């Protein structure tokens, strides 16, 4: 197993250490710290484009710049710590983080996914947050792929799917943190590279966010013991998965959620008693990264004695202890006067903890084992590796016509789409996750008795406040244009959030990409981050945290480039949330936004096996105005139900609202839809952005229309008695679908 340090950097190391040899511990530490996973070389390095531009750090130039320019006073900590932190209410703040755990899940689906959840929970604990909700977004290969079509070393998607879903559920359920939001996709582009996103949202009193490690503070390592499991996880994260990956046994991490459950209790207690001066999780790179980072960001140095680390197996080499990625561990810095009480709290919760070192003024990281110094490195040197320059070839937009006959029966087409794996209800998975534990879930991931779709989950995290947190996501991996794919994903995350009444939305970006050594991948990545900047600005929604996972390659090639946008919004009063079920007969149904002939990559064309046309584009100005106005009419309580339009367009959105409703349905006139296309099927299935379906109180529709004057909107139908969906197409042909049929297609029962 290699260290995965590039040749250039090896040369640099040789030069730097020409006077003495590097120890194995030092070399390992350098490899960990400089790994893509820990250091984000690509996002922090230089990019040279084929049109001659040199960009210093795409992270700073695009993602962080948007946040800086938006300059929101409610952003408390962004891009710095383990999680992003924004203001909430009553002196409390929200912490949010999303991670990927793709490689481990490909090798050991259950353990990989479970430890993904465990890891992101520790990121929240690592900013003193009490975890209150989890999210998961998963992308698999098609479940019906043939065994014979899989190259050696690639596990069947069905096996991965079963394991990943069970792993996610197991960890969250065991920890008693509700899993409230997520998505599942199936596509050939994920057969060799499963994608597992795990997110966690936490709550903390603002004044308990302490990051003040001082000279003389003790380094306390707590939680699970350190073992051989998970050695080289981070360097492993940036190698291509091949048949040999099976041999990378030591990278397998075994989840132990009850240890983390106890750890959480202890840490929240230590937080509430204000006993520690700093905290961080042990994730990639294990103790080496955690201790180094903590010292470096405090402007200090650290001395660590490996003999004091509690081990699972006694015969570990110093370098193994130093970089082990055993799960369920946290590192705290504790002032001497509080040490006894901290240890006592750990004891009370049955958590093992030991003092492994001390923070010192040296600016160096020194590691001792069996009385010998095994590592002595300058932290400035360690955290400033030579920059990496990547080349990017920008994608050329391809144009082609859509070649597809208009179908005879729109209703039949809609039913087919509703039962498509990417669109149909994920209820069978969602219900294996406890989404009610903690008793604070207001909008659940399945809505109401009919298990309809929810646009976003809403939780009420504080006992004494009616304020809620709306958690949404946006992800459109199927639009074959990285810029517009990202634009749509950002807008979708915002749309979903606003649809339930969310506002003041903060975003998290999580990239899953193929190798950055491939210039086309880099070109696509560049377009993607450009869109991040443009639409974060346009929609007034800053990024607060994120992560990139590059090098997702397998014998089947690169992963489908995928960006997950998570939206964290605020609900002013959870009793006023908006839901997707129709409320009363004869209320008008409005569509907000314009419907264009934008079907490239749409669920409809993919289902038909057709590629062509235009991908949906987002007009940031119109989008922002529609969204702002929608929030105002929600606050005026003019909106009785609302659903955002995304995959499958108007047809699927309307059908989903019918699913959510009990004895009500809808009548929709395609003629009344504001659109630039003359085909009924295109109107019904276009995936143009910035659109919502809204049911409005019929006695107050005039007021609603006043709000939207000057913006694209139209009354396209009404709520009807009796469950079902009636679509009247451009030629006045009527398609009638009963609610039974729709539910059967979408839910499967």
């Amino acid at each position, binding site marked *: 197993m290699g260290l995965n340090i590039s040749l250039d950097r090896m040369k640099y190391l040789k030069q730097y250490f020409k006077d003495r040899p590097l120890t194995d511990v030092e070399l390992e530490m350098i490899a960990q710290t400089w790994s893509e996973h820990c250091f984000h070389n690509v996002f922090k390095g230089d990019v040279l484009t084929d049109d001659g531009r040199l960009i210093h750090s795409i992270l700073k130039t695009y993602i962080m710049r948007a946040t800086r320019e938006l300059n929101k006073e409610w952003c408390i900590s962004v891009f710095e710590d383990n999680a992003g932190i924004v203001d909430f209410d009553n002196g409390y703040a929200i912490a949010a983080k999303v991670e990927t755990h793709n490689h481990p899940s490909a*090798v*050991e*689906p*259950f*353990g990989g996914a479970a430890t993904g959840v465990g890891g992101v929970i520790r990121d929240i604990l690592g900013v003193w947050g009490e975890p209150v909700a989890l999210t998961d977004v998963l992308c698999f290969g098609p479940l019906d792929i043939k065994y014979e079509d899989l190259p050696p070393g690639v596990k*069947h998607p069905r*096996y991965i799917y079963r*394991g990943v879903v069970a792993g996610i559920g197991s960890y969250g359920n065991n920890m008693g943190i509700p899993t409230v939001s997520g998505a599942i996709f199936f596509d050939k582009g994920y057969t060799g590279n499963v994608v597992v996103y795990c997110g966690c949202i936490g709550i903390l009193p603002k004044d308990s966010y302490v990051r003040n490690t001082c000279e003389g503070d003790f380094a306390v390592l707590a939680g699970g*013991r350190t*073992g*051989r*499991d998970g050695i080289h996880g981070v360097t492993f994260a940036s190698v291509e998965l091949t048949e040999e990956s*099976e041999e*990378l*046994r030591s990278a*397998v991490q*075994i*989840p*132990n959620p*009850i*240890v983390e459950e106890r750890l959480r209790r202890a840490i929240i207690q230590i937080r509430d008693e204000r006993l520690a001066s700093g905290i961080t999780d042990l994730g990639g790179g294990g103790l080496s990264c955690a201790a180094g980072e903590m010292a470096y960001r405090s402007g200090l140095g650290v001395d660590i004695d490996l003999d004091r680390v509690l081990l*699972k*197996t006694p015969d570990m080499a110093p370098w193994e202890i130093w970089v082990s990625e055993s799960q369920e561990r946290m590192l705290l810095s504790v002032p001497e006067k509080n040490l006894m009480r901290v240890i006592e709290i750990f004891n009370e919760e049955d958590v093992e903890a030991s003092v492994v070192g001390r923070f010192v003024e040296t600016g160096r990281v020194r590691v001792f084992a069996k009385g010998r110094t095994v590592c002595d490195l300058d932290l400035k040197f360690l955290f400033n590796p030579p920059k990496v320059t990547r080349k990017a070839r920008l994608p050329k937009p391809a144009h082609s016509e859509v070649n597809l006959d208009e179908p005879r029966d729109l209703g039949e087409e809609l039913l087919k789409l509703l039962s498509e794996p990417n669109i149909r209800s994920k209820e069978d998975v969602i219900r294996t996750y406890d989404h009610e534990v903690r008793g604070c879930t207001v909008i659940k991931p399945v809505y109401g008795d009919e298990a309809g779709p929810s646009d976003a989950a809403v939780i009420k995290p504080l006992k004494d406040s009616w304020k809620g947190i709306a958690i949404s996501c946006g992800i459109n991996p199927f639009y074959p244009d990285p810029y517009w794919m990202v634009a749509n994903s950002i807008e979708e995350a915002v749309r979903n959030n606003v649809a339930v009444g969310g506002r003041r939305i903060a975003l998290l970006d999580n990239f899953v990409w193929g190798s950055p050594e491939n210039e086309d991948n880099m070109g696509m990545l560049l377009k993607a981050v450009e869109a991040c900047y443009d639409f974060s600005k346009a929609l007034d929604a800053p990024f607060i945290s994120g992560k990139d996972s590059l090098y997702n390659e397998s014998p089947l090639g690169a992963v489908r480039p995928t960006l997950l946008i998570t939206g964290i919004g605020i609900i002013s009063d959870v009793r006023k949330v908006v839901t997707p079920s129709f409320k009363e007969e004869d209320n008008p149904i409005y569509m907000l936004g314009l419907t264009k002939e934008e079907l490239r990559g749409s669920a409809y064309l993919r289902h038909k096996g057709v590629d062509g046309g235009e991908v949906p584009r987002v007009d940031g100005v119109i989008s922002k105005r529609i969204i702002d106005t929608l929030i105002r009419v929600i606050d005026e309580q003019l909106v009785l139900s609302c659903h955002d339009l995304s995959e499958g367009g108007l047809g699927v959105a309307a059908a989903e609202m019918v699913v959510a409703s009990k004895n009500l349905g809808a009548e929709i006139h395609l003629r009344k839809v504001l659109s630039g296309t003359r085909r009924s099927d295109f109107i019904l299935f276009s995936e143009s952005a910035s659109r919502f379906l809204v049911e409005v109180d019929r006695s107050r529709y005039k007021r609603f229309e006043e709000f939207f004057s000057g913006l694209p909107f139209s009354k396209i139908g009404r709520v009807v008695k009796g469950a079902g969906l009636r679509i009247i197409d451009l030629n006045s042909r009527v398609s009638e679908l009963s609610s039974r049929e729709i539910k059967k297609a979408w839910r499967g029962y």
Partner: protein
Amino acid sequence: MKIRAEVRLKPGHFDPEGDVTAKSLRELGFPVDAVKVGKVYVLDVKVNSKEEALRLTEEMCRKLLANPVKDDYTIEVLNT
């Protein structure tokens, strides 16, 4: 044909379930040092030859019942 497949964590992997079980047994007063927990599957395989049954079960273990990265498995025929 009844086949018995037993799947257990490979040596060297830490077994949280075994750990909890051992601790509980000790607390109940039993002199137990360590416990490893595994799963047994008794499979009714519809083939006629023992060899074929073993071969198939081996494949089932590799593909579904065990993860070769972390699990060992043993297979035996129970009767004919």
